[in-house]
């Protein structure tokens, strides 16, 4: 059986599983559609949250992001996990106690203002729609690489699959498919990692292998893996793996990702599905356990895969002859066909010289040894995860699992985002603002239609990406940090915060962050409309647009407190509401139909 057929079978089997779950867990009421009836076990919710959270980018790209930069990009590891500490202590338990269905609903009720509600809906939609585009294109790419279909066909298939279980099951269907998707993606991620760690270091746990000595028979046997990696990198003119620069910018970026993570509405609403406040606290811990299984492994995958590729290019060490074109391993050829890896024998010596051609020392060495430039001309960061099973010489079904895992990571995050978007429309716009008298059945239908509409929009945007797909992370995290996180936190921790303050704060965070991003990245990210060139010399105090979240959040807090202190305190019933979200008693437990 060839690899593509095997991939089809494994991916097809995973889809059949998701459909089976969708039929079993279809939603019969709005409570089930929005919050899975609040009957989800905290461990199960933790697993679903992990799948909800870990996107195509976490699964396919993060190891490469770390591997190509080294220490400095540890920001992604800390930022995308440390946000859960904020969520567990500052938001999740109180919002669960509030006991409604959406994030804008808390903002609207707590700040007794439909303007605040609508501003929150706008923030939520901007954050979630930008984020979902990346998931749809990610699913398309995963399909096209493994199943040999065009990425358009892949994207349409992904939309159809999400449509079936999200429209049918709402939060309830999404929760249980996310659990299945988590299992698929974590197995797919860890199996190749364990084998590679065993080969290189003899340690079966990749996170420990990263700090172990190289095994006998490997390059640099007996010395620590990271020393071997640093040595090879510096010999080839690259930056050291374990050293970094500008610590304050690294700290600011980490903070931006942490606050942004805690303010992402599609993750927050997952904590509305557990029966009690105490469960919401435990569930945040379980979510991080399941996330950590991947996040503790990712830096090892990145470092080990990068080392493997370098020793493949330089089998005799940097002093010896590099690999000959005819001796490249099979996996290298397979992945060259996809365009993620590419070699070009510039000096026609039949050998492939891979080095940093921008380093002056290397240019000298190249002149001495007759090299005419770096010959590994394409080296896509995604390759480090995608080619892992082949590098470790694992059987075909493991490769098929990576395909199913990549698709599961994209689908599970897309479904969570689509639910956040559709519930904001059907619950916060239709039920709360436009037609408060809508019946339960009418609202459930409106929720399903909103979901179908959100999927259609996401599909269209995925097919016609607005040219800023790569900047999605900066925008979504920056906005979540600058708008929703401060507003939600003040709603819980400040009894004095009133409608005018919260609305002004949210708008300040939204406008300031967008203005800063648009200045360097173009107005609405349209290329060529940026006011200043996107280079370090132009940044305000040297802060890149991707690091701006905490500044936007600070502006939100400052404006909110200033405006609130100049206007009247919130009415007594709102102050009582704040008292009530602060104590766990009376959260209501699981609801029956």
């Amino acid at each position, binding site marked *: 059986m060839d690899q593509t057929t095997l991939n089809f079978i494994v991916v097809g089997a995973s889809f059949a599983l998701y459909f089976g779950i969708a039929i079993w867990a279809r939603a019969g009421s709005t409570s089930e559609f929005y919050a899975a009836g609040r009957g989800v076990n905290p461990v199960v919710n933790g697993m679903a949250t992990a799948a909800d959270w870990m996107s195509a980018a976490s699964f396919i790209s993060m190891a490469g992001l770390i591997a190509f930069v080294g220490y400095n990009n*540890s920001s992604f*590891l800390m930022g995308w996990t440390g946000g859960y500490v904020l969520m567990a202590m500052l938001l999740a338990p109180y919002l669960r106690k509030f006991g409604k269905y959406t994030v804008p609903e808390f903002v609207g009720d707590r700040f007794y203002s439909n303007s605040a509600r609508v501003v929150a809906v706008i923030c939520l939609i901007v954050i979630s729609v930008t984020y979902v585009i990346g998931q749809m294109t990610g699913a398309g790419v995963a399909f096209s690489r493994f199943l040999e279909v065009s990425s358009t066909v892949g994207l349409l298939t992904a939309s159809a699959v999400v449509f079936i279980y999200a429209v049918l099951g709402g939060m309830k269907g999404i929760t249980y498919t996310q659990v299945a998707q988590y299992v698929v993606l974590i197995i797919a991620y860890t199996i190749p990692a364990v084998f590679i760690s065993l080969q290189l270091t003899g340690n079966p746990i990749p996170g420990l292998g990263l700090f172990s000595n190289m095994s006998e028979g490997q390059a640099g046997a007996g010395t620590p893996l990271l020393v071997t990696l640093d040595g090879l990198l510096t010999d080839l003119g690259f930056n050291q793996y374990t050293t970094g620069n500008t610590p304050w910018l690294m700290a600011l970026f980490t903070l931006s990702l942490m606050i942004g993570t805690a303010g992402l509405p599609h993750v927050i609403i997952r904590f509305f599905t557990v029966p009690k406040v*105490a469960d919401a606290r435990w569930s945040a811990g379980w979510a*991080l356990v399941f996330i950590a299984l991947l996040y*503790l492994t990712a830096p090892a995958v990145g470092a080990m895969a990068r080392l493997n590729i370098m020793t493949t290019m330089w089998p005799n060490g940097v002093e010896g002859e590099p690999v000959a074109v005819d001796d490249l391993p099979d996996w290298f050829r397979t992945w060259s066909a996809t365009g993620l890896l590419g070699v070009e024998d510039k000096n026609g010596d039949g050998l492939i010289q891979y080095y940093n051609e921008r380093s002056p020392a290397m240019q000298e060495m190249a002149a001495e040894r007759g090299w005419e430039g770096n010959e590994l001309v394409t080296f896509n960061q995604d390759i480090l995860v995608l080619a892992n099973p082949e590098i470790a010489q694992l059987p075909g079904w493991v490769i098929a699992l990576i395909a199913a895992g990549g698709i599961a990571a994209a689908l599970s995050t897309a479904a969570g985002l689509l639910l956040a978007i559709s519930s904001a429309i059907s619950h916060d716009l239709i039920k709360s603002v436009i037609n408060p008298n809508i019946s339960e059945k009418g609202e459930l239908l409106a929720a399903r239609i909103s979901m179908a509409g959100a999927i259609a929009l996401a599909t269209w945007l995925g097919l016609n990406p607005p040219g800023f797909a790569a900047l999605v992370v900066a925008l979504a995290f920056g906005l979540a940090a600058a708008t929703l996180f401060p507003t939600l936190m003040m709603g819980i921790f400040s009894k004095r915060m009133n409608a005018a303050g919260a609305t002004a704060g949210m708008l300040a965070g939204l406008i300031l962050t967008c203005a800063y991003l648009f200045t360097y990245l173009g107005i609405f990210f349209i290329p060529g409309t940026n006011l200043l060139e996107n280079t370090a010399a132009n940044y305000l105090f040297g802060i890149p647009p991707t690091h701006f979240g905490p500044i936007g959040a600070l502006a939100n807090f400052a404006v909110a407190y200033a405006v609130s202190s100049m206007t009247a305190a919130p009415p007594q019933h709102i102050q009582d509401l704040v008292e009530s979200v602060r104590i766990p*008693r009376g959260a209501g437990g699981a609801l029956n139909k």
Partner: protein
Amino acid sequence: MAEKPHNNAYWAANIRLITVCLVIWALASYGFAILLRPLISGIAVGGTDLGFWFAQQGSILVFLVLIFFYAWRMNKIDKEHGVDE
């Protein structure tokens, strides 16, 4: 809100606990892994220094312990103040 003084003590206990946890949270990530890394660079771990280990493994493990500790401690504080369910 007849139980107000009672709830105030409960809320103050929560804020104290959150403050302690967030100090440790910041120390493990912004501290040891980034800004204070030079101070602990003398401690070697598997071919590099302790700061690198905190950046790629240790901080995540500390976050995990913190969330579970907070949940456990807070559920006890709920009971002590009679606001659990």
